[in-house]
């Protein structure tokens, strides 16, 4: 693999006695989208802010193309924060113009407007924008300097499905153009669709990392079976399941074997549903394993 455009080496961040990030190693390559996943409080945002050079690490280093971060690093990155307000009284056009003026070279206004579909919004102030429109403006602001690296911190949080899909299309296009993208999201469907690689963070550490399809391929044999809760007492001893409302979710390594045992036990399978393992299942399985291990200890 070529040299990463951005690399974190043993990043640590302490706030007093609290360790928010406890030694993170991450590499990001041009033209790829890396998903940084984890529960709330896992240290994703602090990690990203150190990568963005907005916070100094307590230990470790961030390197750009193999060298320490240049003084004009901010000119090479685009940032879309999790929750950012736009200047109250400026129109979308004025805000774009302001941000373009803050960089030595900038994308053309027409290109930004077309890419983020802002044509109808240019004269509007932030208070009149919908959630999806606001996110598109924030994405346009992240792109005004034609960044090589784009940081997207939960870009589609709270958006309706169609607005999310519109943003995904823009992100896919940017990735195809060679932009390196670091994405955090709580939507596993989004991560599965957009990310080439996934890093899962827990308690300030990256606990699982790999290509998205590799993570999923570890579970190619497995299937997720959902059965009604009423069959719980009939399940053979030792069957692992998780309760999801009125349903039981069971990860089965070999579907044929499992079905045979359940039929032998006289379980009514007429309401059973079967699906492949998704990234969300991997994510949840990972955290339930961790919780179980912690419980054992």
């Amino acid at each position, binding site marked *: 693999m070529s040299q990463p455009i951005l690399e974190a080496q043993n990043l640590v961040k302490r706030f007093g006695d609290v360790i928010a990030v406890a030694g993170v190693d991450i590499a990001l390559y041009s033209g790829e989208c890396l998903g940084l996943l984890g529960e709330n409080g896992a240290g994703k945002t602090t990690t990203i802010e150190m990568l*963005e050079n907005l916070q100094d690490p307590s230990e470790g280093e961030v390197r750009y193309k193999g060298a320490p971060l240049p003084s*004009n*690093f*901010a000119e090479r990155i685009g*940032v879309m924060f999790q929750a*950012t307000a736009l200047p109250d009284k*400026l129109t979308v056009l004025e805000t774009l113009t*302001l941000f373009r003026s*803050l960089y030595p070279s900038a994308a053309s206004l027409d290109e930004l407007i077309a890419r983020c579909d802002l044509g109808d919004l240019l004269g509007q102030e932030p208070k009149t924008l919908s959630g999806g429109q606001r996110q598109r403006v924030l994405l346009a602001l992240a792109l005004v300097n034609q960044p090589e690296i784009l940081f997207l911190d939960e870009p589609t949080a709270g958006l309706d499905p169609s607005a999310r899909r519109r943003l995904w299309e823009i992100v896919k296009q940017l990735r195809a153009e060679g932009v390196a993208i670091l994405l955090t999201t709580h939507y596993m469907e989004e991560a599965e669709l957009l990310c080439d690689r996934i890093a899962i963070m827990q308690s300030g550490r990256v606990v699982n990392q790999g290509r998205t399809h590799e993570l999923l391929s570890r579970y190619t044999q497995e299937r997720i079976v959902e059965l009604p809760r009423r069959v719980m007492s009939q399940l053979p001893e030792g069957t692992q399941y998780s309760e999801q409302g009125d349903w039981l979710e069971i990860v089965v390594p070999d579907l044929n074997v499992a079905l045979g045992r359940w039929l032998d036990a006289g379980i009514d399978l007429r309401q059973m549903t079967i699906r492949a393992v998704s990234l969300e299942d991997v994510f949840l399985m990972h955290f339930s394993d961790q919780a179980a291990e912690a419980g054992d200890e």
Partner: protein
Amino acid sequence: MNSLWLSQCWALMRSRVLEMLRDRATLMWNLVFPVFLIVSFAFAFDGQRARFTIVAPQQFDLMTGGWYEFLHNSLIRVDWQDEPLESLDKLAKHQVDMIVDPLGNAYWINQNSANAYLLEKVLLQIMGPNQGLVRHRLEGEPIRYVDWVFPGIIGLNLMFSALWGVGYALVRYRRNGVLKRLQATGTSASVFMFAQLGARLGLLLVMVTVLFIGLDWVFEFPVVGSFGTLLLVYLAGACAMLALGLLLAASTQSEELASGLINFISWPLVLLSEIWFSLEGAHPLVAGLKQASPLWHMIDAARAVMYDAATLTDVLPQLGYVIGFAVVVMALGAKLFKWR
């Protein structure tokens, strides 16, 4: 200072001015509030003072005779001074009605003052003819309360606009993440602060000019000094108040704390800066504290320029203090400034 610095600064300044101009309610309040105050004071203190005021020397306090009878009168308030002739300016502005020197058998009056005319009649009646009284006359138009309070109201408006316009606005931007977003562009803190201060300063000076011209047109203030010097005084004062706003907001995280700090700083400044009334004769501690207030120095210098024709050289000490205050406080604010 390179071209990117200038372009960033200009862009931020322009945006801030646009935001301020579009915040119509605040803008109108900044213009209407001082007009409301001035008009109110003009009506409230329109009448003449009910009592006659005479300045007399301290050592005459125990003296008897015609002068005693003249001065010990319930209609007359006597301001006993070590150096009565230092009040000649006040006599010229009708702020006192007569100055007397019983030992020298002399008195001073303003020949344009009706009160002085009446007092002189009473004095001559009491003293009787052939007393060898020496009369000194001078001329001068009266200073109304509204004239006196006007420079203070302008100063007050400058102070509140600067503290809230820069201080509160910065904290709000910090809270809602706009500052963090700007930090991510690589814009330096110095560019950002310079732009904020520049934008507000420009707007403040335009507002002061509009207020000044508008109110002067209505009330015809007897301004005798240089408008250029006056503008310099207000410019320096505005810089000091903006610097104070920046310091208060430098690392404050919440709008509630920012409001508390602004009130905590502004109200003592208001009370100590002789905006509404003179602190002459106040406790020495108050007089000492007054000297520390940049607002007082600005207002005092503005009054001196407007009504005493003070020159730039005359107000240099006040200007020096105000500019020094602005530089020190701005440096401190810049050092403490945090994007988040």
